[in-house]
């Protein structure tokens, strides 16, 4: 092989590509590294700069954030909201995605359009009537005020998502099941569901992330202890707000579950967000 100019040019470009990728990668991660390290420091160590390693890795700050700044309470709230939303929305979306994807029925396009509408409208469009509605139902400042709307919104995305998935499944599976005497319900849950793990996992992690990070809805609908982590963090006041390592610990607490989920399921995560995710 002749190592001509073109070859070296290509090598240079590849090298440059890796370099740029590295720079962008570090850029994306450095701020998090900074805040993460700060969460383990004591206030006096702050002066050494954000990226200096803490002398001793203290968990004091986490303790203060959890108890004093009530992040333990907010964590509980977040879990109480996120788990029902994800579970209920996934089940309902699987059911409706199945119907849209595999059964032809009168009005299916119209209904689908209505559901897609929900994908595109921002939460700003619904927040005022929702707030009023919750008041009328007597649900304001309860967890239901957070769970029900988010189930609704997640259902829109989930239906879309699962429909696309079911449409791509081979019909032979269904034929075989039907021959064996399955009705529509069993076809879904006994046959198709076990084979849908990738799609379901993607959906679950996406819904988890969006619901965990939800801010605007929570800000308006609930107060006090019912607040979820992001709102608790944004509205942190008083003595802990002045304590940077405690704030850093609080921010870490807020991010940890999502990051953990992310690392476990990152393949699904990325695939999910990338394939035309339009819920936002």
């Amino acid at each position, binding site marked *: 092989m002749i190592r001509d100019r073109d070859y070296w040019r*290509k090598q240079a*470009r*590849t090298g440059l590509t890796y370099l740029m990728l590295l720079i*962008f*990668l570090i850029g*994306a*991660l450095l701020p*998090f590294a900074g*805040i993460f390290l700060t969460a383990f420091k004591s206030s006096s160590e702050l002066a050494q*700069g*954000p990226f200096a390693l803490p002398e001793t890795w203290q968990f004091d700050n986490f303790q203060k954030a959890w108890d004093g700044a009530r992040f333990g309470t907010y964590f509980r709230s977040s879990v109480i909201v996120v788990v029902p939303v994800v579970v209920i929305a996934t089940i*309902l979306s699987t*059911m409706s995605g199945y*119907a*849209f*994807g*595999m059964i*032809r029925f*009168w009005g*299916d396009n119209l209904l689908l359009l*209505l*559901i897609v*509408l929900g994908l595109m*409208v*921002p939460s*700003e*469009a*619904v927040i*005022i*009537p*929702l707030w009023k509605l919750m008041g009328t139902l007597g649900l304001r400042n309860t967890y239901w005020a957070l769970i*029900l709307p988010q189930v*609704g*919104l997640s*259902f829109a995305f989930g239906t879309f998502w699962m429909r696309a998935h079911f*449409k791509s499944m081979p019909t032979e599976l*269904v034929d075989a099941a*039907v021959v064996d005497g399955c*009705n529509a319900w069993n076809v*879904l849950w006994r046959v198709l569901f076990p084979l849908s793990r990738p799609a379901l996992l993607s959906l679950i992690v996406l819904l988890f992330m969006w619901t*965990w990070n939800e*801010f605007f809805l929570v*800000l*308006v609908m609930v107060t006090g202890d019912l607040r979820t982590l*992001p*709102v608790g*963090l*944004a509205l942190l006041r008083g003595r802990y707000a002045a304590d*940077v390592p405690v*704030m850093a610990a609080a*921010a870490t607490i*807020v*991010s940890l579950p*999502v*990051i953990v989920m992310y690392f476990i399921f990152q393949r699904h995560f*990325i695939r999910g967000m*990338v394939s035309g*995710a*339009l819920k*936002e």
Partner: protein
Amino acid sequence: MKTRFFSSRLDNPPYIHPYQAYLFILPGLIIYAVFVLWPILNTARYSLYDWTGFSDPVYIGLDNYAELWNDDDFWLALQHNAFFVIFYSILPIMLGLFLTALMTRRTLRGMTLFRTGLFIPQVMSPVVVGIIWRWLFAYDGPINELLLALGLDGWVRPWLGDFTWARYAVGGVGVWVQYGLCMVLFIAGAQSINTDLYDAAAVAGANAWQEFRHVTLPGLRQQILVAFVLTFIAALRVFDLVFVLTRGGGPGKETIVTSLLIYREAFQYNRAGYGAAMALVLTVIIVTVSALVMRLQTSEEDAQ
């Protein structure tokens, strides 16, 4: 691949009835209708009233919209949203394309690592992102310290409180959040571009720029459209980030955005009707642009 069956129009065995489809959809649809659809319709209705949110509404027709048209703050907020489109959409897309253009081999080693890391800003709550960058931009924070260390004393300023630079600071965070998304999208897309096209380009003697323009760019059209829609919507809806970074609109009104305005009018100034009108206008803009882009997308799909 034929996937539609159980159709009422085809002669299907009667063990599946189309009406059962409704049963599957119904539970979710009810919750969706009550908590999403019905509120959307009501926002439109409330926008026609003068209403505090807790006293009796007074019908005023389109007066809210007339007031909106003349409201300087509203136009200012929209302007800022447009400004953020540059930082949320255009710049990250350009960065993503730049990176893709550099790539000569379609598959790189270590891609998983890069992909995983680059995506993390997308995964974090915007509140956490805001807290981190507020700390970074603090007057005695790391960014200014770095500038001092580099001898760039004149550049040190209270970024998020500076009338000229606050918007750019917030925009900068926007770029940081979104560039990973675009890069991941485009790199994945580039990997599926037919290598024959690149060979053909090489044979035809195309240089890097021409190769980019005629092979890479067209091949990435889908991804660019998706990236644009996602980031455009994010730019128009931005709330959490600005709320945390500038505590609601920046120094003076420098970083106020539409969603902040809606929050303020409806929930702090007791003008729910006015806020609803604003929300409706915002929604119309978003839905229109999304629909347009999706139309472009599906026509693409059909063409392919």
